[in-house]
């Protein structure tokens, strides 16, 4: 091999960045580079036969480094996997993230506390209600207020519906990637029904901004309870249908059992939480361990499995959907009355929202009150909407159990009307670190199954 050719790592590391590193770390990177001295074959389309012929002529090594993504349907977004292959076998795998970074954490520092909800709901776009709830719980903890019981129950109701819809997308896309195309159609069909319910309640299919600090933005609309009950009834039958389709399906078993196995100790070391941890046998669920929003009132189980492989994760997620249905029913049966936002005018959002024919907006009665009846109400409305409320100084870390694991919000306040710092511990970000250890030794086709079982949402990973 000639000396002039760049190594793989030289091509990746920019000189400026390497200088910026502490000397010890920079030295280590060079050794890594020397370990893999290979030629880089740039492929910009063209005839595949020519490319392979060139590789054959120049290459003397069986190892191949290939990019999967960032544009690849089975990476669930813009995830890039740098895969080192010997033939079909994965020797090493490194996820590369950051393609969807939008600076949400920084953006929240220049908006009021209430506006923060609008940002965080866009992170993990399959589980928006969880983002909103965790953020609002953190703000409430700093404020020292608690949302009224009805708001808490409504949050649980919406979170559990959202959990089902998130798991449905997981089941649908995993089915699609492993060739079970009907599962894709069924999964998205049922998810659509949940999104209809979410739209009826919040006004939007996703990015709801419905959970607000100290409550929720509005109560349930008339007649929605029957719709949810009908959905729960249907969904039970549908879950049985999925089981008939997949649980004993020989192809599904072949593609999922024994794939992506990682034992419990390794998972904990890597910080993995959620269904992946439960599929390795640990019965850990924050809804049970550190109940929030009144989860201790509801009777449900924490499903576990022992396989620690893709099939076990499928079992756990399917069982979780059934448990969520149980919780939804119990919430509807025991829904307390009362307001959905605290009465304290220093914190509560002043506007009364209403769903009109053209979507969500201020209720006509509230507009009449502030525009025609009370000057003070108008001033109060204006101050609360533009400046917002102040939050006492301090810092909190609030975790909730999202469909992907522990979703934590570390929020720091300096006593002002804007957050000082909002850091999000997104489960997708942390769980994705397990991709490398999980996939070493697998075949390329199984990488897709194993990655899918982690269920990363890149909006949450990159934030």
């Amino acid at each position, binding site marked *: 091999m000639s000396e002039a050719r760049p190594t793989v790592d030289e091509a990746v590391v920019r000189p400026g960045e390497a200088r910026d590193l502490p000397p010890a770390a920079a030295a280590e990177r060079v050794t890594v580079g020397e370990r893999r001295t290979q030629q880089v074959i740039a492929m910009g389309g063209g005839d595949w036969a020519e490319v392979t012929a060139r590789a054959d002529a120049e290459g003397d090594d069986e190892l191949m480094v290939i990019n999967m993504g960032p544009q690849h349907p089975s990476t669930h977004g813009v995830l890039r996997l740098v895969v080192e292959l010997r033939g079909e076998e994965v020797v090493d795998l490194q996820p590369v993230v950051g393609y969807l970074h939008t600076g949400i954490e920084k953006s929240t520092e220049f908006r009021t506390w209430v506006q923060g909800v609008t940002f965080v709901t866009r992170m993990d776009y399959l589980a928006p209600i969880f983002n909103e709830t965790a953020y609002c719980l953190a703000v409430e903890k700093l404020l020292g207020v608690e949302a009224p019981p009805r708001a808490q129950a409504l949050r649980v109701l919406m979170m559990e519906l959202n959990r089902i819809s998130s798991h449905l997308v997981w089941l649908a896309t995993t089915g699609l990637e492993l060739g079970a195309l009907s599962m894709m159609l069924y999964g998205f069909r049922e998810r659509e029904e949940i999104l209809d319910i979410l739209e009826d309640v919040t006004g939007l299919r996703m990015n709801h901004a419905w959970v607000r600090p100290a409550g929720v933005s509005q109560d349930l609309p008339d007649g929605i309870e029957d719709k949810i009950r009908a959905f729960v009834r249907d969904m039970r039958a549908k879950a049985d249908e999925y089981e008939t389709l997949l649980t004993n399906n020989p192809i599904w078993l072949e593609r999922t059992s024994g794939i992506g196995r990682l034992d419990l100790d390794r998972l904990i070391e890597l910080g993995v939480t959620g269904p992946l941890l439960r599929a390795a046998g640990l019965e850990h669920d924050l809804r049970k361990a550190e109940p929030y929003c009144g989860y201790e009132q509801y009777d449900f189980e924490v499903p576990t499995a022992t396989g620690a492989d893709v099939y076990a994760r499928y079992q756990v997620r399917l069982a979780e959907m059934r448990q969520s249905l149980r919780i939804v029913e119990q919430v509807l049966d025991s829904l307390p009355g009362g307001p959905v936002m605290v009465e304290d005018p220093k914190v509560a959002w002043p506007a009364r929202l209403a769903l009109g024919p053209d979507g969500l907006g201020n209720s006509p009665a509230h507009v009449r009150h502030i525009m025609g009846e009370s000057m003070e109400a108008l001033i109060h409305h204006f101050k609360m909407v533009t400046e917002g409320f102040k939050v006492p100084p301090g810092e909190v870390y609030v975790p909730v159990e999202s469909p992907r694991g522990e979703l934590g919000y570390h929020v720091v306040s300096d*006593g002002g009307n804007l957050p000082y710092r909002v850091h999000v511990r997104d489960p997708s970000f942390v769980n994705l670190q397990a991709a490398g250890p999980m996939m070493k030794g697998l075949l390329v086709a199984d990488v897709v199954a194993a990655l899918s079982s982690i269920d990363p949402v890149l909006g949450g990973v990159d934030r």
Partner: protein
Amino acid sequence: MTAETTFQPPDALQPVLTGLRERFPEAVAEVRGHRGEVTVELDRAHLVEVATWLRDHPAARFRLLADLSGTDYLKLDERPERLCVDYHLYSFDHNVRLRLKVRVTVEDPHVPSVTGVWPTANWHEREVYDFFGVRFDGHPNLIRILMPEDWKGYPQRKDYPLGGVDVEYIGAHVPPPDTRRYKGGWTST
């Protein structure tokens, strides 16, 4: 940060805090509680040994590093150590949480890496390096993770300049977010 005067740590944490004070009297700078959460501020020199002790000691068993995050305390307090790294630990055995805090200056932003104690710290530390420029000594691969590789500066620091936006209208310019609306900036306090 205001320390609550009547701070009473959870029962499960009592032996941990006592053990920490006995075992590492010189490492623990301060223990405080706020909103039911316990924070232990540490001297960075002892971080790794304290972390290992907390992970392995039967009274603690903090096996999960739930979160590692950075904060820039510029303008919030007077201390020169404005960069702060928070470690949020969780113990499955005792179902308690604990926050470790290490603070460093911008001139000497070195913190020992805890990747040897909790491998999950790998990406977290890369993120804090990326956004705050904290150097984690001993980290196996400390490169940027979310920002582009050739990015200059550390965007989450409080003195990082924010750009405005030129818009397609003669002479129009949207000012940076921290200077919008109010003269003299959106000061939050």
